[in-house]
């Protein structure tokens, strides 16, 4: 079981409480599709993804970004058993969506960069450490049911 310090718990709650999901979700997903273009393979039916401007203006990308970010809510509320919390989602991503689990890491990195931009100086090294540890647990849990 993952051990969380008081600082880490408080930091994760605070970061997500202050987060503007409607802004961060779309920003993170669109950044992922631009920076790691091979991730576009999963969004063949999303329409125009031909260039960065198209991706950032695409309403389906924006909507899905919000969905994915809200998907983290359950982990934020259940930090002591993220693995179980995401067992079903892991099966979904493996059996139905066929997403290479390395993509979770790529999206997590983009989310970190976006949160860093929004929080500025408040995104201290310790906050970054807690945030990345949280995302690493999420990423690992989402990959757990792949076989």
């Amino acid at each position, binding site marked *: 079981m993952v051990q969380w310090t008081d600082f880490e718990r408080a930091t994760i709650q605070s970061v997500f409480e202050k987060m503007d999901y409607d802004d961060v979700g779309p920003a993170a997903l669109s*950044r992922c599709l*631009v920076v790691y273009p091979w991730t576009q393979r999963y969004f063949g039916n999303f329409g125009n993804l031909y260039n*960065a401007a198209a991706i950032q203006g695409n309403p389906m990308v924006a909507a899905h970004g919000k969905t994915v970010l809200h998907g983290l809510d359950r982990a934020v509320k259940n930090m002591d058993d993220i693995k179980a919390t995401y067992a079903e989602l892991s099966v979904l991503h493996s059996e139905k969506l066929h997403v290479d689990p390395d993509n979770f890491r790529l999206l997590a990195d983009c989310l970190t*960069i976006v949160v*860093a931009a929004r929080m500025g100086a408040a995104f201290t*090294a310790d906050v970054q450490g807690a945030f990345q540890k949280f995302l690493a647990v999420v990423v690992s849990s989402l990959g757990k049911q792949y076989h």
Partner: protein
Amino acid sequence: MSLSAKEKVIVKDFFAKVSSRSDEIGAEALARLIVVYPQTKSYFAHWKDLSPNGAPVRKHGITVMGGVYEAVSKIDDLAGGLLTLSELHAFVLRVDPVNFKILSHCIMVVLSMLFAEEFTPQIHVAVDKFLALLALALAEKYR
């Protein structure tokens, strides 16, 4: 994955724009490296002070960022231009190349924090590619 002519311009322009704060970027990136990825401290066991805001870490961050800027100036031939640095990392420092990726991530987090407006996805992808190619050039002499 090589840099297009356009991406080289993006990288050169962006790093020129942020050059006045390059020391801060380097110091902050290295501080984050050792805090967020404590295993990297294994390379600095010979320093008396390993605190992220201490003098040795900040000074070394500045040194490393200087290397990044040298690479920007040699963007048209990274492998050739960084030969000496590659030999240093391969034969003397023997830094496991996985750490180049980690440091690149920390540099980009700092760039995003300090230059939120400027570090757009388009600039992010060019810088990410550049840092990856820089890492590859540094690993050139490893084996």
